[in-house]
């Protein structure tokens, strides 16, 4: 334990030393102090150095819980509260209450405007809420609370129901009209999925082929849906990526040809990877061609409507526990699980991206604002 404390202290001292040396060097080479239009901005310099120390203190939690992390954490909470009080005072309480009610009341020659006296009602109600802290007079706080709950219920119920329930139901049920090409895609998908489900239990090559075809159709739809949408200025290089995929497939297949002559499993694996890359490339090209078609946008809109309707219905089926999940209800609830998993996966992916963004933001601060390594 004692050794561990000594190690922690040594690490802390080394970090502090590195920070001092780094800042001294930055001052020596002229990166610090921060300059605004050529003039040293000392308050901003202090903000940057404090920000660096706090960032490193927070990151130190990755090593283990320690006093520096806890100090930074508590400082953040305290500062947040302090700033909240100051901003509330200066942006609201002072101009809208103190200056027009308190200052005139206590300044000789000034009088409080009659209409401003109405402010005493909300102030009184607010003070009544504070009585919640008293054991004897806590009951008084129920009156303003009842007033608040009644007011907000009456005010919010109608718009909230309209926005969160009626509008959502409307947009789920009302679908976009489907053009013939959309019906063709839906028909093909239904036939493929039905055939895949039928032959899945029988096994064999046909089953594998149908599974691959179903997967390819799903992939094609996703690719077409994501590449055919934007109607803005021409940007992006997705075409380059597709051709890079083609080049990769070609190289893998050439290598497979070389290794196939030597025997062993390497050639087969290379064929598999090259073939998969080529299949994705072909699907991508077909999807991109479809995405450029005039009716593509309408087909996408219709398909989105159908998928959303199916998703909502199947997820609702999954949550109906008064019916046994067998037969049609069972199939629908299983589809509901898939929709839920896709939704959770998307949420998780976005959550990971969000956390990455936060770390990137801190690194942009350290490398950019502090070390000036970023352009």
């Amino acid at each position, binding site marked *: 334990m004692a050794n561990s404390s000594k190690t922690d202290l040594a690490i802390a001292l080394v970090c502090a030393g590195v920070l001092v040396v780094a800042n001294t060097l930055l001052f020596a080479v002229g990166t610090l102090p921060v300059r605004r239009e050529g003039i040293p901005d000392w308050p901003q310099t202090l903000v940057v150095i404090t920000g660096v120390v706090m960032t490193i203190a927070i990151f130190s939690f*990755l090593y283990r819980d320690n006093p520096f992390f806890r100090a930074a954490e508590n400082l953040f909470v305290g500062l*947040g509260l302090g*700033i*909240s009080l100051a*901003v*509330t005072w*200066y*942006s*609201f309480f002072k*101009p*809208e209450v103190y200056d027009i009610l308190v200052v005139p009341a206590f300044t000789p020659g000034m009088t409080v405007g009659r209409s401003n006296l109405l402010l005493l009602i909300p102030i009184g109600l607010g003070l009544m809420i504070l009585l919640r802290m008293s054991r004897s007079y806590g009951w008084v706080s129920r009156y303003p609370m009842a007033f608040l709950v009644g007011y*907000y219920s009456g*005010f*919010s119920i109608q*718009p*909230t129901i*309209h*926005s*969160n329930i009626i*509008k*959502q139901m*409307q*947009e789920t049920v009302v679908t976009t009209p489907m053009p013939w090409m959309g019906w063709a895609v839906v028909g093909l998908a239904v036939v493929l999925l039905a055939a895949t489900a039928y032959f899945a239990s029988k096994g064999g090559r046909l089953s594998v082929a149908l599974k691959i075809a179903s997967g390819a159709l799903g992939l094609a739809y996703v690719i077409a849906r994501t*590449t055919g*949408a*934007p*109607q*803005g*200025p021409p*940007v*992006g*290089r*997705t075409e*380059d*990526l597709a051709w890079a995929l083609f080049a990769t497939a070609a190289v893998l297949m050439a290598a497979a040809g070389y290794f196939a002559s030597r025997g062993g499993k390497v050639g087969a694996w290379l064929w598999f990877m090259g073939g998969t890359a080529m299949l994705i490339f072909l699907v991508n090209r077909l999807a991109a061609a479809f995405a450029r078609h005039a009716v593509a946008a309408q087909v996408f809109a219709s398909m*989105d409507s159908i998928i*959303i309707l199916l998703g909502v219905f199947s997820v609702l089926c999954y949550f109906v526990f008064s019916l046994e999940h067998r037969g049609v209800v069972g199939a629908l609830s299983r589809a509901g699980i898939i929709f839920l998993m896709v*939704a959770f996966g*998307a*949420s998780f992916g*976005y*959550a*990971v*991206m*969000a956390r*990455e*963004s*936060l*770390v*990137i*933001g*801190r*690194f*942009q601060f350290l*490398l*950019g604002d502090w070390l000036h*390594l*970023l*352009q």
Partner: protein
Amino acid sequence: MRVPWSDPRLIFPLVAGAIALGLVVHVKPPITPQEPVVAVYNYIQQLPKGSVVLLAVDFDPQALAELRPIAEAVLRHCLRQELHVVGMTFGVLGAPLGYDIFRKVTSEPEFRGKQVGVDYVYLGFKPGDMTQIITNMGENLLTAFPQDYQNRPTATMPLFQQVKSLKDVKYIIDLAAGGTPDTWIPFGSDKYKIPLAVGCTAVMGPDLYVRLNAHQINGLIAGLRGAADYETLLGTPGLGIGGMFAQSLIHLLIVAFVIASNVAFLWRGRRRKQRG
């Protein structure tokens, strides 16, 4: 059984290294803007000059890394299109952040001629219930915000001769790190028939697609990727595009770890089987 590379002492430095490399090495990955981001861009693009856009900076320091690039890009676009921008916030800690963003963008050489109270104004924070404040803004913006963030009276500002209430605003953009869009939609956008777009953290993105599909918002800019999309459309690289290569490197690292772990898992299973 754990694989050797699942040790945090290896993972954390690798992630840190990937981010540092991604930021320092100037590689711009291919960025194809997503449809909901393009929708916001196109809507701002077609607004007539002088239209008033309300920019609600409803986030706090925790979401700064994601929402600051979005706020800067959208503000730049609005000012470039000669729109008038009214900024405000429902987040008390967002008040100084919003001010800082407005100050930074308007001090750029391109916008030096823009004047406070004429071309833009930052009203700051107003405490209280959001529904009540939005309703107050719908009746009279000047009573809702008698002063701007720096305590200048709004009644004398030329901008507020043009915009008296929320009804005069042509577009609302809510930069949210919490539940503010759920209030802006029924009490701001639906009630006063004003188109609404949302810029949000990536975590909130999937939840807001529901609003997008229901046409309750006409565009969505989610996370750092959304910011990069908007900067690409605008042709002005900023923190969003700057972070994309680093983000791609982390994704590659994660994918590599997942593949390596699965291969190790299969290989160990096979060895165990061989041993019987």
